[in-house]
């Protein structure tokens, strides 16, 4: 897992992705531009978050799920 550590906490790049979703960025391309992460990392990270139930893919792109919002809120 690249974006979620074994202890369930997001990594540094994972936190960037979660914050970008909270800020309203939706497509992998927008998120890559907004975070400076390579597009392939964003795509694989979003897939990982979706599989973990932290993000949801909708018609207009990715959104934080309630679980993802809760996780982000628990971060310092």
């Amino acid at each position: 897992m690249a974006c979620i550590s074994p202890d369930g906490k997001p990594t540094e790049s994972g936190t960037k992705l979660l914050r970008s979703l909270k800020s309203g960025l939706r497509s992998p391309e927008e998120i890559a531009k907004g975070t400076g992460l390579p597009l392939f990392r964003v795509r694989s990270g979003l897939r990982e978050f979706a599989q973990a139930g932290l993000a949801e893919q909708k018609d207009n792109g990715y959104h934080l799920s309630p679980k993802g919002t809760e996780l982000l809120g628990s971060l310092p």
Partner: protein
Amino acid sequence: MEELKQEVRLPRLGEPAPDFEAVTTQGTIKLEDYKGSWLILFSHPADFTPVCTTEFMAFAEIYEELQKRGVELLGLSVDSVSSHIAWVRNVEEKTGVKIPFPIIADLSKEVTLRYGMIHPGQSKTETVRCVFVIDPNQIVRAILYYPLTTGRNMYEILRLVDALQTTDQHGVATPANWKPGDMVVVPPPNTQEMAEERLKQGYECLDWYLCKKKL
């Protein structure tokens, strides 16, 4: 037997790159994650080996130049993720060179077999030094194979990318030893009429079939 033959069939130029989902040092990555970018997928024989270490440092050195060209790098060997992590950390500790691109840990050899990276005449267990240049539409555009004993030339890899991108952008070919800024080859005429016209078009021509121009 027939099934095995299909399994080890080599990718060919102009065909879609074989699909994969692989565990890497930067998480699980699928080939489709690179759609829209150029990708250089390359294999090395093994972690913690001398020629491979020099190559990884050299790939890291050209990484920025590749990024300027919209190219991502993805390494591969049949070592584990833990081995890859230990090796790249060792390289950074000993040389200060950080390896910025992911490396596939292909212990199952799934990707290795799909890309024909093991050449039994060289080694039955280690991948040879392959380079697959894959375009943004995920088509294989160039393939290089180097033996275990010979480190690859990074300038040639950059030159190859430049040549492919120049061809795509301008619809031209590139002559021997071409480098950016040199004249390019105008595609040869394919009718007699075009051949007669070609010499009047202001190109630098040896004859009707070999004409060059500046971009």
